């Protein structure tokens, strides 16, 4: 058995109103892949942030390579050769890969033996070599903004490797990746381990843990539940321990009862931000009581499709009708009033005003209706009452009730708040765009139940997701989007995951 490289001893960390970690003790061995599993707010990220020096524990100690350390800053953590890839990447988007990686550690050379300058050639060469060694396939001279998410993540990995990190922490690394990208990511992780690195994965995707991890620690509400040997534990068992109750991975649902056509989209074409057509002549209908799910690899026009139906982006041609009413040229507000609820993908910048209180965020798309304001004067009691009702009904947890600034809430609770707000509008059409991205199994199950409940209440549901499991779980009708066009539309029962995978890659293009 190899020796422990990181040890947490009786770690406790409190935030105002919340105990993030309570008496957590665990040790991680050199050269293993160690997974941290737990629901949102279970304290995984907090624990790792302490290892990376972003917080200091209130109680307990951290031992690195047998020596007790006080990790006061990420800088010191880097000196201890600890590296972390955060959920949101920290890259300068108009710099090249190499420039990003060397930032703060620029190799110097003296022009004419006198004037110091950055030796970018050496950096490019070193990074290319590193990339080669770990099979990362990154060109150091590419500019970050031209890279896709998966490549950016690999740049973050290179950044750690360049700093000679031995202990690599990944915070929800696969949340933003497609199935194919996840596969290659897991291979990279495997390669890193063979290179002698110790890897800590913060995740709640059980399959990934099963695929690569050696051991996993399960946290629940800040406390360590158990440390499991992955090879001898089933995913069901892990899931049960994580949520503290049995969960099933399929949402129980009645057969769908389709009603009238609610949304009719005809030949919809939408330009993307680059000025090219991102959605190309898409046609489909959604009935009342139907979950219409759009599968596809990231970046095939999903965002533009959702935004154009919700009115955030205007289409360049085609027609959108809602309950027979032409809304092709309607504004966002007109569409809200016509009955479109929308859960956007970007919950931080679009779905919420992060610096508003929870109370002010709930009526964000309805504040002007008579219930909330009269003649421009806000009815505060109604704001408060509405918020408290949603908070209770949707089990939204926050440290400070209605006065909580939403920025301070966990991602899962932020998403719950958005879904609560939109679902509560009881609209004939509701659009879910990547509703469970980055959420844990318990929350995912909950959201899936809500999607089905919306359907059963008679709403038309448009679900756009990169997660095939989610699509299989919820959909009544599945459409596959590829390169801006809808490749295939079929009842859910008629397609297997493999079929969908093929259509997602553009194979079997029929129309």
């Amino acid at each position, binding site marked *: 058995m190899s020796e422990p490289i990181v040890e947490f001893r009786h770690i406790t960390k409190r935030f105002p109103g919340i105990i993030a970690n309570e008496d957590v003790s665990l040790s991680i061995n050199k050269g293993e892949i160690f997974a941290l599993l737990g629901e949102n707010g279970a304290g995984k990220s907090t624990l790792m942030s302490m290892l990376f020096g972003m917080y200091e524990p209130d109680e307990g100690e951290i031992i690195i390579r047998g020596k007790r350390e006080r990790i006061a800053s990420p800088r010191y953590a880097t000196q201890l050769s600890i590296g972390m890839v955060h959920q949101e990447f920290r890259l300068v988007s108009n710099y090249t890969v190499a420039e990003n990686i060397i930032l703060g550690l620029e190799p110097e050379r003296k022009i004419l033996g006198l004037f110091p300058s950055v030796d970018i050639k050496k950096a490019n060469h070193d990074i290319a070599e590193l990339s080669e060694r770990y099979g990362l396939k990154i060109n150091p001279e590419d500019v970050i903004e031209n890279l896709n998410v998966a490549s950016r993540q690999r740049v973050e990995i290179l950044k750690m490797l360049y700093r000679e990190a031995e202990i690599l922490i990944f915070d929800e690394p696969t949340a933003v990746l497609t199935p194919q990208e996840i596969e290659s990511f897991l291979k990279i992780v495997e390669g890193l381990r063979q290179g002698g690195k110790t890897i800590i994965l913060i995740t709640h995707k059980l399959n990934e843990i099963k695929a690569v991890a050696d051991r996993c620690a399960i946290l629940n509400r800040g406390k360590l539940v158990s440390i499991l040997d992955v090879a001898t534990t089933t995913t069901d068992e892990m899931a049960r321990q994580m949520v503290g109750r049995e969960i099933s991975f399929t949402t129980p649902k009645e057969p769908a009862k389709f009603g009238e056509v609610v949304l009719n989209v005809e030949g919809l074409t939408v330009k993307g931000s680059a000025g090219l057509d991102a959605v190309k002549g898409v046609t489909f209908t959604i009935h009342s009581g139907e979950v219409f799910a759009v599968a596809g690899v990231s970046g095939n026009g999903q965002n533009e499709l959702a935004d154009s139906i*919700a009115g955030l982006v205007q289409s360049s041609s085609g027609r959108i009708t809602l309950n027979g009413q032409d809304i092709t040229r309607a*504004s966002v507000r007109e569409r809200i009033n016509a009955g479109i609820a929308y859960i956007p993908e970007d919950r931080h*910048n*679009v779905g919420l005003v992060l610096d508003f209180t929870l109370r*002010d965020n709930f009526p964000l*798309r309805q504040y002007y209706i008579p219930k909330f304001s009269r003649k421009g*004067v*806000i009815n505060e009691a109604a704001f408060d009452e509405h918020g408290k009702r949603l908070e209770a009904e949707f089990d939204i947890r926050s440290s400070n009730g209605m006065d909580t600034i939403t920025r301070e809430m966990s991602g899962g609770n932020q998403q719950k708040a958005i879904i609560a707000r939109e679902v509560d509008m009881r609209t004939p059409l509701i659009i879910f765009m990547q509703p469970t991205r980055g959420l844990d199994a318990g929350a995912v199950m909950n959201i899936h139940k809500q999607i089905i409940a919306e359907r059963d209440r008679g709403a038309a549901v448009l679900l756009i997701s990169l997660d095939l499991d989610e699509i299989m779980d919820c959909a009544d009708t599945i459409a596959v989007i590829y390169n801006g066009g809808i490749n295939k539309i079929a009842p859910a029962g008629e397609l297997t995951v493999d079929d969908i995978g093929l259509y997602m890659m553009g194979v079997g293009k029929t129309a």
Partner: protein
Amino acid sequence: MRKFTLSCLAIVISLLFGALILWLMGKDPVAAYMNLLQGSGLMEKARYSGRQNMFTDFMSFLDAMTPMIFASLSVALAMRGGFFNIGVSGQMLAAGITAHMLAGVIPSRVLVVLAGLLAGAIVGALIGWLKSRFNVNEVVTSIMLNSIIMYVITFYINVFYINPVSRQSKAVVDSARLTLSGFRWENLKMDIALAFPLAIIAALLLHWFLERTTYGYEIKAVGLSPKAAYYAGMNVNRTALFTMTLSGALAGLAGVSYFCGYLATIQPGVVPSMGFDAIAVSLLGGNNPIGCVFASFLITIISKGTVYMSSRQHIEPEIASLIAAFILTFAACSAVLDRRKK
């Protein structure tokens, strides 16, 4: 609450800093600070000249404070709406000259206020329009407009409107001036700021407007997250334009209460520094309208009490300005600190 603590901290630290400097100069900091209060009519002076007492000093103090309240409200509103209105000075000048010209034709205080409101609003709207229509950074346009307005007005004053003795503009007629200058009451002679109640009402109204109306809700949402505001179905461009128009109108009120009130003339070739000080005052007040009133109160104590302090303690007035500058700098720092903690 946090903001309040930080602002108080900024004040305490800078006063201590100022005290240190005074002490190093061999002066008595306590006495100097008491002089500031005395000069502002908040403490009894040892001796008064004829027709003067603590009350008249206090009235002059309010007269100086009035434009600062308006100016800081203008900045605060813009900040809440996501704008950095560094052009308050230019808007003040535009309002001041418009009111002067109008008062020359029809001397009426109501018209002076309305003219200021309107002139400031137009300049503010121009900045807001350039931003929302062409996405031109408001900092650039407002700094440029400060210069443009100042030079146009300087030209106008020098050519048509100069008092050759004082090298200032001609004075606004008393019947249109927002400060009753040399008003006699009992055996006292004082300046009464007629616009002061208006400033307090403006602060209360603005607070109510921001916190209790849908327009305020929209302004704050657009200021904090334009994308989320757009998603919420708000008209982001219209809200931005409205914010800057209103901010300009408040700056206009600052302009008339300064150039047609506290002062009666406009000095050509000078951009009033009040528009810039107002930025720090607004930050000190946490960009909150009520906070702005208190912050203006504090800063005016220093700016107004300086004269008395320098004469009593034989300190150069620059030292007092230095202390005021410290407070404003620390206030700005505390605002940044607040943002970083999040």
